[in-house]
């Protein structure tokens, strides 16, 4: 390490004063990498009203906790969050900064890496130190394939971590850590955008989060009218209908049916994807499902890598046959 940089800094996002699940997942990999650099594990916790979150960071394994607690950090903005993380980097001189692959993390990491002329490894599903370099594995081409990305490791490096790639450690409530508040003192105009409101996704009549069976339709259904295939199948199974972001973006279905990173997280006994390709933004929301079934025309669709049962074929032909057969089975 040059400049005596060692150890790992975790950028920990919170919601309503608690650490977000995707940020909790940073602590296990963070601990492993900290040992590999021969340094300690620091965490900067960001948000507003963070006493509980700071203790939680210690319980999850941080040796040192920096608390960036300010009203300006209640809502995410690149300017405010970058200032706080910058201050934490200056205070800890880490070898690597790990961020969750959230919308915020994916904004902050390239912004800060560019300002500091540092390497940035995106969306890693694996990350290790090899012969002094940082080597990450990440999905590319919309998750169809993986590649290994490598950075020299001779200076500060940033990495975002793919949601669900690493397990969050069990918290140890007895654990404590050196905890410091970061003095940020935001100047007027320093945050160049104003967050006026947060519009919560409309709850809607859907019971997606409780349903034991969820049938999700993706863009592979072809058009809005073909969602009838998903509705019919869900109906015969007594399940709920969900949609991918591509579908809600197209206006085929209401936003409250969206499943994934910016929609609902579901954990049904049975998930059936019709024309769902399995983009990361969607699969992070379904990984708690017990059984995953996928029907898609594209044999390379990433959903088949996590499916318990998959059929490569024409969803418009197969789905009605499946509904009919299930109706016969259940009726008989």
């Amino acid at each position: 390490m040059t400049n005596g940089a060692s150890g790992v800094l975790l950028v920990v996002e919170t919601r309503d004063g608690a650490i977000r699940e995707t940020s909790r997942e940073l602590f296990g990999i963070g601990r492993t990498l900290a040992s590999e650099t021969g340094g300690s594990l620091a965490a900067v916790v960001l948000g507003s009203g963070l006493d509980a979150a700071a203790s939680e960071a210690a319980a999850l394994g941080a040796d040192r906790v920096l608390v960036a607690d300010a009203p300006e950090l209640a809502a995410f903005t690149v300017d405010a969050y970058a200032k706080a993380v910058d201050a934490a980097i200056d205070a800890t001189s880490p070898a690597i900064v790990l961020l969750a692959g959230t919308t915020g993390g994916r904004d902050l990491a390239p912004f800060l890496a560019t300002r500091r002329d540092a390497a940035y490894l995106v969306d890693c599903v694996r990350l290790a130190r090899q012969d002094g370099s940082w080597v990450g594995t990440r999905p590319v081409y919309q998750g169809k394939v993986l590649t290994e990305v490598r950075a020299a490791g001779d200076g500060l490096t940033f990495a975002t971590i793919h949601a669900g790639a690493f397990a969050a450690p069990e918290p140890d409530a007895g654990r404590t850590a050196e905890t410091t508040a970061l003095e940020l003192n935001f100047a007027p105009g320093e945050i160049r955008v104003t967050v006026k409101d947060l519009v919560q996704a409309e709850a809607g009549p859907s019971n997606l989060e409780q349903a034991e069976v969820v049938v999700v339709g993706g863009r592979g259904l072809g058009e809005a009218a073909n969602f009838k295939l998903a509705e019919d199948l869900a109906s015969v199974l007594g399940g709920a209908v969900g949609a991918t972001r591509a579908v809600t973006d197209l206006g085929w279905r209401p936003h409250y049916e969206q499943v994934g990173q910016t929609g609902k997280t579901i954990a049904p006994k049975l998930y059936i994807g019709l024309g769902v390709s399995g983009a990361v933004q969607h699969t992070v929301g379904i990984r708690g499902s017990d059984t995953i079934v996928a029907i898609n025309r594209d044999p390379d669709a990433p959903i088949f890598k996590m499916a318990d049962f998959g059929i490569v074929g024409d969803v418009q032909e197969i789905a009605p046959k499946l509904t009919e057969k299930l109706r016969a089975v259940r009726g008989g």
Partner: protein
Amino acid sequence: MKIVVLVKQVPDPNAVRFDPRAGDIQSGTPQVANEYDLHAMEAAIQIKEQQGDVEIVAVSLGQARETLNRCLAMGADRAIVVEDAALASGDSAVTAKALAAVLRAEGFDLILVGQETSDGGTGSVGPALAALLDVPVVSNVVALEQQEGRLTVQREIEDGRQVIDLAPPAILCALSGLNEPRYPSLKGIMAARRKPTEAKSAADLGLEADAVQSRVSWGALFVEEETAEGIILKDVDADSAVDQLVAFLQERKLV
């Protein structure tokens, strides 16, 4: 007002197939405009239609003549392409540095770009440009209104939609929920033939070779071994596939 739209030509995501021998995607995959970039382009045109006195410049790095022609046919006024193989094969930081050089030379009030590309998909270029050009960035944009010189933007995040107020200059990264990109009209396609596309080299942009060294290298592409448990039926007729699926669901007591 001057709006610069950043676009990239990418392998058609619907045609991308992995070639295990090459450790890459199949060669000869058709190239298309990156989808999110077309939403950025559409947003620029809508601002121009609403406001009138707007110049739209489409900018791309790497081979992108067809994509730029499409942007011109949609309604961009002119295009700039940086056709430098070394720059085009660089990492996202190199891409951002090259585009920043174009943007500094051009000047801009607003930069619109797709949230991410369908190939590398780092989503890094918008935030990196914000750092290089010292302007604010708002990502994951799904709604955009312009009034009296200010922008009201909605961005989609994990907790809902943030409603954001800001003033140009700024960088906005578009998602597909933002709008429906128009198809070029015949009139637009004819008009595009008379619109200029300017080619620039790294030297034109004053970029020194060592200033644009990639810090992150990509290895060969690969896929994980299929998980043993997953049953994937290929080339099985629909009736037989459905029978097998129903038997599987019954075995797991799911029906």
